[in-house]
């Protein structure tokens, strides 16, 4: 192996190394960190962010961004709870449609996908910059959440629904299984399918991609609806875990997702990065949160540290780029 490819591999694994170092340091600082129970705990906490950040990765790889995922999460969580509890009621037609758990979840995910399609439509058809289009959706979806819930939580959704967010399967929390499936699917898409190639190509050089006959708009519509659908899955998990849909759920989740993407080494300019990197990024954030809590660091300082880590991650990444 030549030194240059050795260095390249090193930079590819730098977030893994950072995670490793972080874990070792925390193990020395507190006995409570390196235990199986705490490990499971961390994974459970990061599962939702992993789902959202995976979708965000696909979007960022096309050189886009989605600021609306937190609000979409809240709206879809509320819709799941609403469908479960109240179903769809049409008093004028004297019609009532009840929903099973699966039906409610599917309904929410479909609504999420449609909201993402709206984002994609504004971005491709009307050339609204992704930042602005999804910023608008952030407000719109939050507004609909308030309208749908009347500003009150929808609670008491039943023990079987709670299994999704709080249950265990073979000793591992169900949300972790869900996140794992999401990640594996996304890795498969990015590494093994045409769609994945197109995503990287569009982010790498949109003009060249267009001239190569790639239907750019179609690919963008797909990634934005996937991103929002994954936010909806996050909404289902959050609602289930709390046994309640909170109208202000998911506030600033988009920032955690973007942070995971960036720490994981995906370039906001698109075309460079990976889903695996994002998973590592999300786990780093989770471990950091967890460790700082265990060390009794004040929540205010936790925010400062998190911000500093994001900045550091990007600076190190840039330095690696320059060397290449």
């Amino acid at each position, binding site marked *: 192996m030549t030194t240059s490819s050795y260095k390249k591999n090193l930079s590819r694994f730098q977030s893994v190394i950072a995670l490793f170092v972080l874990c070792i340091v925390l193990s020395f600082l507190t006995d409570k960190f390196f235990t199986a129970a705490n490990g499971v705990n961390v994974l459970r906490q990061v599962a939702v962010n992993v789902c959202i950040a995976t979708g965000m990765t696909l979007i960022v790889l096309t050189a886009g961004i989605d600021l609306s995922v937190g609000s979409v999460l809240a709206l879809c969580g509320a819709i799941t709870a609403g469908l479960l509890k109240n179903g769809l009621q049409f008093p004028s037609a004297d019609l009532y449609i009840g929903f099973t758990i699966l039906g409610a979840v599917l309904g929410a995910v479909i609504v999420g996908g449609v909201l993402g399609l709206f984002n994609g439509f504004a971005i491709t058809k009307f050339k609204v910059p992704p930042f602005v289009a999804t910023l608008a959706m952030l407000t719109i979806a939050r507004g609909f959440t308030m309208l749908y819930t009347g500003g009150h939580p929808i609670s008491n959704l039943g023990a079987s629904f709670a299994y999704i967010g709080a249950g265990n399967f073979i000793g591992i929390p169900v949300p972790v299984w869900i996140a794992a499936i999401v990640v594996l699917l996304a890795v498969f898409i990015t590494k*093994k*399918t*045409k769609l*994945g*190639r*197109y995503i*990287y*190509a569009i982010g*790498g*050089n949109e*003009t*060249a*991609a*267009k*001239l*190569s*006959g*790639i*239907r750019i708009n179609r690919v963008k519509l797909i990634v934005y609806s996937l991103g929002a659908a994954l936010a909806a899955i996050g909404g289902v998990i959050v609602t289930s875990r709390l046994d309640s849909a909170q109208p202000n759920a998911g506030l600033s989740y988009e920032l955690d997702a973007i942070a995971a993407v960036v720490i994981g080494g995906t370039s906001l300019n698109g*075309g*460079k990065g990976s889903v695996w990197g994002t998973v590592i990024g999300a786990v780093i954030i989770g471990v950091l949160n967890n460790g700082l809590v265990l060390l009794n660091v004040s929540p205010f300082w936790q925010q400062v540290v998190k911000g500093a880590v994001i900045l550091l991650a990007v600076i190190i990444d840039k330095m690696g780029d320059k060397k290449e």
Partner: protein
Amino acid sequence: MLEAKNISKKFSGVTALSNINLVLHPGKVNAIIGENGAGKSTLMKIFSGVYAQYEGDIIYKGKPVKFAGTRAAEEAGIAIIHQELNLVPYLTISENIFLGREITNAFGVLDKKKMNEKARELLARLNFSADPDTKVAAIKVGQQQLVEIAKALHSDASVIIMDEPTSAISDKEVDNLFSIIAQLKNEGKTIAYISHKFKELFTVADHYVVLRDGATVAAGDMQHTTQEILIEKMTGRNILIQKRTANFQDAPVLLSLKNVCLRHPELPSTNLLTNISFTLHKGEILGMYGLMGAGRTELMEAIFGLHPKNATGEIAVEQSVKKIKSPCDAIGAGIALVPEDRKLQGLILNQSVNTNISLTVLEKIERWGLLLSAAKEKDLTSKYINKLSIKTSSGDKAAQSLSGGNQQKIVIAKWLATNPKILLLDEPTRGIDINAKSEIYKLMKALAAEGMGIIMVSSELPEILAVSDRVLVMCEGELTANLPIDNASEQELLKYAIHKNNP
């Protein structure tokens, strides 16, 4: 006034200028003439401080000078008006004129009133009565040019360089520009005027300098020369060219265009292409010559479906009319386009050679219509890496790590992978070394022998003459000549490229 002495300039080893000597006569209009790539722009960029690294001396007002940047050149009194105007569209006329040289009052606050007054004064000198508070985006290109000139006047420039000033303005605006140039001359300003348009040069210029292949080949008085002499000086190469001799008139028609027009996307009344009709036969290499801005690239783009909203006319492939509204449609019709700028349009630079080559044909390397197969991809790409002898240690290397010639071969490879019937090549050898060039020529000839129809857009006359079976010449969006290679010579082609009517 301004003098260049033995100026040489290299770009990463490639010589752009070698021992240029020229004098800009004070108070006169000095025409700088030369083919595309002769070195005009490079020289002007040295004069105006864009390039600070060069060999030789610039003598300005009798003293040798060396400008560290554009700012230094401007302060010394040399202003350049670029072909693509350098204005901030959403600032006002006055704000643009004073950009970087704002007038402030005693408190350091912008003195808008004073600036507008001064701007009005400057504009009045140019017979341009606009409100200085108008946004630049709201005025016409010709008027924007006047703003650029006002900017130069404000900086009290004594040398004004104009790069193709009439390329984007109407005839009426040209007349106005010429009267302003005459006035500037009266005020004692020295003007360097770069243009391809001989009619204009004979109207406006006093002296000329001809550049060819980065060297000065002739200079003199405009009055004592003719267009023919200048054209000869511009081309005057003596290269043995092996012309192709085949005749394809009887071969089946692969591509035919009928009355293809292309509207300007922003100025609906002007056409970028007007009534283009021609045919391309099986096995034929069609050269497409023209000067910068003649519309050659736009024509290739129109054929490839990149202007679905503004293009009209009929495009037929193998005698059947095709609706080509997107690159996908074009690829489906058997057309491939190797674009002009491989880095901006052809390649995804940070991705591997393999990924770039297979991008156009991913469905060919799929298993079960779902999964991309690395093995199939390698089979496909290594075939083309060998066929085009792309020099890379592995197909996994990033495209950006390869040389220009090899990068260009990747772009060609990714299009050959689609098995096109018609291959459009836009400046396929720009910026690549001699060896890679001749390899690409060989490849083109081999592909044509296999029955592909090829259109090669090029600004290099020797290349056009060496490779083509037939040559089309374009000028200002129109087809001005369609010559069998036997009737084509450098002088002849240049004549058609320069003049739209009665060459």
